[in-house]
Every structure is written in structure tokens, then in C-alpha cells.
């Protein structure tokens, strides 16, 4: 490497590292009263829509960030299911969360309130109702903590490679868990990914320049690129599991219905 380039890189790294300290969005900053009201109202509307749908299991998404730069509308998804019977039934969401920018994540079961009590970018939910047989196979898994944990990898990268097992991001955990419930042979992450390929799942390709990748890797513990194949990584093709790609796939493969938006 030429000295000038090396020096530029070192400064770039320092500049990136310096900005991190200022830019952490993980401060324990209380939400505004109006944000709480809007989040919980969205949760209430979602519960009503889900109950009226007659479904037992849906894929549920929220818009926590503005991802329009990447052509994406939603940032995060979970698998929601009806818990209990009759008028006392409630909806729960199982989803994977990482604690505040860290590289470790866990699976949680939460209410719709918690799901939307986040720093939402748009107060809008989206659901895809799965086909009845897909729901029927998935429901017992969603109630069973051991099955939810089976394909969970704690090592988290926000842009984990969809066809690798070194890291696992939250949308990836959800579709791998969906896969394992559909086919008993999909009992490992590798096999679940093989099932997803067989069913025609296609991840989103993000075009991130080298500098963007460098900045992101240095500033955030929860972003890694070393699980991506070199030929894709170095040609700025970063593939990952996004909500929008999952919704398109569910619809295309007829595993689920159209996207329904709730506000």
C-alpha cells in the first residue's frame, strides 16, 4: 500500500471512530408522551386487525428506520401468533433483538405493545397472513421456547450473509425458524437455508461502497462483513435478509398472502 493511501485510511478510521462516540443512538432516552400514544395506538389497531383476520400466525413488520435509500419500506419483522382462545386470546410476537448496538442478540416473546414501543420511523405496521397449512406447522414452534432457540445464533450482524452461519440477524432468524417448522429435515441453519433456496427465497442486495462498509464496521459493533464471500463483498454487493424481500418471496411462492398495511 502506498504511504499516502495508508495514511488516508488511518485518518478515515480515526474519523469514523471519533464519530461513534457522539452518534450512539442507544442512550436511555425516554420517548415522548406522544410517541408512546402513537405506538400503543398502532399496537391496538394491529391487534384488532389480526383478530378480525381469522389467522393464527402472521409475519408482522415495523418501520423503525428510514431505509428508502435502499428501496426498503420496513426494517424489522417478527412472527406473531394468537395465544389462547375466545375473547381472552391475545397476540404475541416472537422476534430476535440485539441489545443496543451490541453484537449479541436474543430471542424474545413480546406483546404488540412492546413490539411497537420502539423508536418508529413510521407509525405503520405490515402483515402477511401465511397459508393455513404453513400457519398450522409454525404455530406449535412459536409456542415452544426450545424450538425457538434451536436455530438461534447469538452472534449478530445487522447485515449477516443469508447463506452463512457465522452471524444471524433478526429477519434471518425468523425465516430460518419458519423453514425449520415447515420441513423437519431443516433442522440446522444450513438445512433451513437450503430449504429457503429451494422455495425461491432471494435476499436483498445492498450496494454499499467500500468506505460505507468501512465506516459502518468501525462505528458499530453489530455490523460485520467478514461472513460475505469476497467476490460479492469487494464488488459492493452485500446480500442480507430484509423484510421487503421476505414479503415479496412469501407472496411469489404463495406461502403467504399480500402485504396488508395497518396504521
Amino acid at each position, binding site marked *: 500500500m502506498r504511504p499516502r493511501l495508508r495514511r488516508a485510511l488511518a485518518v478515515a478510521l480515526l474519523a469514523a471512530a471519533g464519530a461513534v462516540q457522539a*452518534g450512539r443512538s442507544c442512550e436511555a432516552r*425516554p420517548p415522548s*408522551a406522544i410517541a408512546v*400514544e402513537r405506538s400503543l395506538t398502532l399496537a391496538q389497531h394491529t391487534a384488532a386487525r389480526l383478530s378480525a383476520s381469522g389467522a393464527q400466525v402472521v409475519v408482522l413488520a415495523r418501520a423503525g428506520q428510514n431505509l428508502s435509500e435502499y428501496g426498503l419500506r420496513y426494517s424489522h419483522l417478527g412472527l406473531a401468533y394468537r395465544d389462547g382462545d375466545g375473547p381472552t386470546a391475545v397476540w404475541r410476537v416472537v422476534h430476535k433483538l440485539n441489545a443496543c448496538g451490541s453484537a449479541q442478540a436474543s430471542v424474545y416473546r413480546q406483546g404488540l405493545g412492546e413490539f411497537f414501543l420502539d423508536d418508529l420511523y413510521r407509525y405503520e405496521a405490515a402483515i402477511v397472513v401465511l397459508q393455513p397449512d404453513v400457519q398450522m406447522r409454525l404455530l406449535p414452534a412459536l409456542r415452544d421456547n426450545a424450538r425457538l432457540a434451536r436455530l438461534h445464533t447469538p452472534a449478530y450482524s445487522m447485515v449477516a450473509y443469508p447463506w452463512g452461519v457465522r452471524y444471524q440477524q433478526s429477519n434471518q432468524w425468523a425465516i430460518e425458524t419458519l423453514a425449520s417448522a415447515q420441513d423437519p429435515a431443516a433442522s440446522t441453519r444450513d438445512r433451513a437455508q437450503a430449504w429457503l433456496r429451494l422455495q425461491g427465497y432471494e435476499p436483498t442486495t445492498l450496494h454499499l461502497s467500500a468506505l460505507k462498509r468501512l465506516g459502518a464496521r468501525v462505528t*458499530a459493533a453489530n455490523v460485520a462483513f467478514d461472513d460475505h464471500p469476497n467476490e460479492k463483498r469487494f464488488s459492493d454487493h452485500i446480500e*442480507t435478509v430484509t423484510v421487503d424481500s421476505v414479503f415479496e418471496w412469501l407472496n411469489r411462492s404463495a406461502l403467504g398472502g399480500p402485504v396488508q398495511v395497518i396504521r
Partner: protein
Amino acid sequence: MFPIRFRRAALAALIATCTFGAEAQSTLSEASALSMLPVAVSVAAPVMILSAGAVLTVVAVEATSAGTIWVLERASDGARASVRLGARAAEGLSMAAGTALAVTAISTGWVLSAASQAIAFVPNEIGAALLYNERVTR
């Protein structure tokens, strides 16, 4: 003075940091910090003091093994109520006696806020059905 190329590289890195770096905290597959809003586990009467527009003052904060208890007093008539927050819910939340809280009634319960920032939520029956939190994996 740095060579032009050098300056441009540093600037590009800063821009990269400010755009993608900021989003990277919680995006794409995000995962938020878990909700920071404490939820009341129980409210000891009179719930009536949680009427919309009421101004309450925190008169006492007690830490107990079952969680944190705030004793609230309504400014207009001195009526009191106590709100218990789960032990984990109140973690990281420091509430001093004398803090003034505003009450906002919403369809799912009551939001208690200080200086427009929500500091706790007291769910009604509809709100309670929307709330649940269990960590499935360690």
C-alpha cells in the same frame, strides 16, 4: 496542510459514518433496544387521580424487593395514589421526589410524563393485553 486526496478521504469517511453509521445502530434487521418505558405493575387507589390533564407530584420513591413504588399526589386536591413498577422496569430510571408529572389518558391507559417525556405507562385492560415481555434465549 494535507494533500487534497488525503482530505477527501477523511471527509468521505465522515460522511459514511454520519449516514450509514448512524443507521447501523438499529436497522435492516434491527433490533432495538428493548423498550425503555417502565410499565406499572399495579396502581393502588384511587385510580381516579389518573385523569387526563391532572398534574401529579412525586412525593416519595421507595425501592422494595418487589419493585419501585412511587407515591403520587394530585396538585389540585392532595389526593394520593401509589404506582408500583417492576424491579427491572425501574432500572436506570431515577425519579426524584418533587418531580412534577403530567397525565395523558389514551385508549390503552395513562402515560405519565415529565417535561413531555414519557417516564411510565399505566395500562388499562386494553393496554395490559398488549403488553408482555419474555426473553426466550439467554
